[in-house]
């Protein structure tokens, strides 16, 4: 058993940490305060550095790195600018990854390279105004029309919605037998009738243009049906398994940022003639943060390791998605408490960490949904199969 990063992973960490500090560190506060997306030149630079396609094959313009490297990248970006971490993880793991994993030759050739290079930013959407955790209740529907599908409906809370161009869209289709099932379509904003709705005014992650998307008689070529199959639900669920590792890594990054800020502050801030970190009430909080963040990290790497070695990882992915966001929330809450009044002002980033962390317990499956997945797997394991 080896719990050490490889030299390559260490170099990934050093490089992305440097990039996040030097480049994103100029923007994190501005994006949050002004609720605006990253400037295009930064998005372009991230493309050149393979940030939008870290796991995509080198032949396609990606970096061909493993899932551990991917997790390291999301953590380090989110440590500085969580909303950029969000854009990157969604683009990589729930748009590009499923195109490469399930896509037809045509789909991989057409959408793989431009997504990998970040020339076009992507997203993934199932959620609708009235359909969240119950993904099967979506109302967006596709009707077959010759070689095309005509799609109508509305999507809500779409990450990268405002800035993205390529979206994987879940829609119900009648397979001819009268039975409806979910299929996933690759949709381009160029398609007539595909419109961006309102950009949400969010509590946190304000640098991501989360928006509504609407489809009015959008004609989607049949060859844009992901994987050429109407069985989209299982592809969507497998996609989310990958995405959850990214969200857990993002939560870890936010938690680490809060922990580090609190540890630094506790060693500098003096009350009653000593640094407040010398009081056990404060140092115990820091100790708890460190323990929990380390545990979350190991859980995430376990899921990465399983995925990289080609084994089932959906339960581990749900476990780290349930745990890391909870840890991040606790770390942010306690960091804010250690900062006292200074934690509550917008001049310092701690209150932002708190706002950013909350959503990680909600999107890509709430913590409760994660526990349903984990609970079901426990029950099936212990149910007498004979």
């Amino acid at each position, binding site marked *: 058993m080896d719990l050490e990063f490889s*030299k*390559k992973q260490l*170099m*990934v960490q050093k490089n992305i940490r440097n990039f996040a500090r030097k480049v994103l560190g100029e923007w994190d506060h501005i994006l949050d305060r002004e609720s605006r997306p990253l400037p295009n030149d930064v998005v372009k630079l991230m493309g050149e*550095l393979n940030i939008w396609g870290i796991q995509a094959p080198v032949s396609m313009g990606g970096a061909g*790195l493993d899932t551990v490297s991917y997790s390291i990248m999301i953590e380090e970006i989110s440590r500085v600018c969580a909303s950029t971490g969000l854009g990157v993880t969604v683009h990589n793991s729930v748009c590009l990854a499923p195109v490469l994993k399930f896509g037809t030759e045509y789909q991989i050739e057409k959408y793989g390279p431009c997504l990998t290079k970040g020339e076009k930013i992507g997203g993934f959407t199932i959620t609708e105004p009235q359909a969240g955790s119950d993904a099967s209740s979506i109302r967006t529907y596709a009707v077959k029309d010759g070689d095309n599908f005509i799609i109508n409906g509305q999507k809500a809370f779409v990450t990268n919605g405002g800035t993205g161009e390529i979206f994987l869209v879940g829609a119900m289709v009648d397979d001819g037998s009268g039975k409806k099932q979910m299929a996933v379509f690759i949709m381009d904003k160029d398609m007539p009738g595909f419109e961006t709705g309102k950009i949400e005014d969010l509590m946190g992650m304000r640098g991501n243009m989360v928006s509504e998307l609407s489809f009015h008689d959008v004609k989607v070529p049949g060859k844009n049906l992901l994987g050429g199959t109407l069985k989209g639900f299982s592809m969507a669920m497998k996609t989310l398994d990958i995405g959850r590792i990214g969200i857990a890594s993002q939560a870890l990054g936010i938690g680490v940022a809060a922990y580090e800020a609190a540890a630094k502050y506790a060693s500098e801030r003096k009350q009653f003639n000593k640094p407040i970190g010398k009081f056990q009430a404060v140092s115990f909080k820091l100790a708890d943060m460190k323990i929990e963040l380390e545990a979350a990290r190991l859980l995430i790497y376990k899921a990465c390791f399983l995925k990289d070695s080609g084994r089932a990882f959906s339960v581990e992915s749900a476990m780290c998605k349930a745990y890391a966001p909870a840890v991040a929330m606790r770390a942010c809450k306690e960091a804010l408490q250690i900062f006292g009044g200074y934690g509550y002002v917008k001049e310092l980033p701690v209150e932002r960490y708190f706002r950013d962390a909350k959503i990680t317990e909600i999107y890509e499956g709430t913590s409760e949904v994660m526990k349903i997945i984990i609970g079901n797997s426990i029950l099936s394991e212990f149910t007498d199969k004979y």
Partner: protein
Amino acid sequence: MNLQINIREKLMLNIIVCTKQVPKTGNVKVYKGTGTLNRKETENIINPDDLHALELALHLKEKYESHVTVLTMGPDNAEDILYEAYALGVDKCVLLSDEQFRGADTYATSLTLSRAIEKLGGYDIILTGMTAIDGNTSHVGYQISEFLNIPLITQINDIEIIEKHAIINRLYGHEYQKVEVDLPILLAADKETNHVRFSKFSDINNCFDKKIIKMNMEDLGGTEDDYGIKGSPSIVVKTESFTHKRQQEKIDGNLDEKVEQFIDILKKHNILKY
């Protein structure tokens, strides 16, 4: 021996960058008592100024057809910085490693690097960092230029190559100076020279598959007396760690007495003379 001699192509710039692996000085661990560096516990990095030299080389490579070789002298683990150089996009990395090279001062280091540069074949531009953060001498660039008998130019703001000469815009303080010089030259870069790029992840992924060429004393020629501690005219007598602490003194008495005592203290420290 795995020495590849370059056959110079027409109009192809041969650039050699000298780099050094240094302890990250912001966070060094020192043994209590002896004051020497605990190298096991201290992270090693590419000397920061050398990164600016590397960036300048890569910038030239983008502008002109060039071949960039990175050279370092050090123990086997100095390979780490060469892999980082590969991840930034250089063409070839050479490690000068030999027991006999140990303990070299700046003179012996410069001689070793100069000999290696000559062995590597032709060169048009040698690049070094201005200063290394561990020794802070800034000797090596100057000494290499003397050993190779080529001009050295510092404080580079911009550089243009026209055929076999360079037009260099130097910036110091608020003045510019334009220098026109025949190649080959040695340029010493520092943090004012440029902004260092970030590695591409794809280059990180393949950098460890690239080959590091190793050269030892035998490859460079000369005798044991030229290298390492034997070839070093300077001798380190003692290493001490210094701390500058603010001193505090309390003065008692009435106002006149306090002023009187204060003046005495200032005189004692040569701050007031009369």
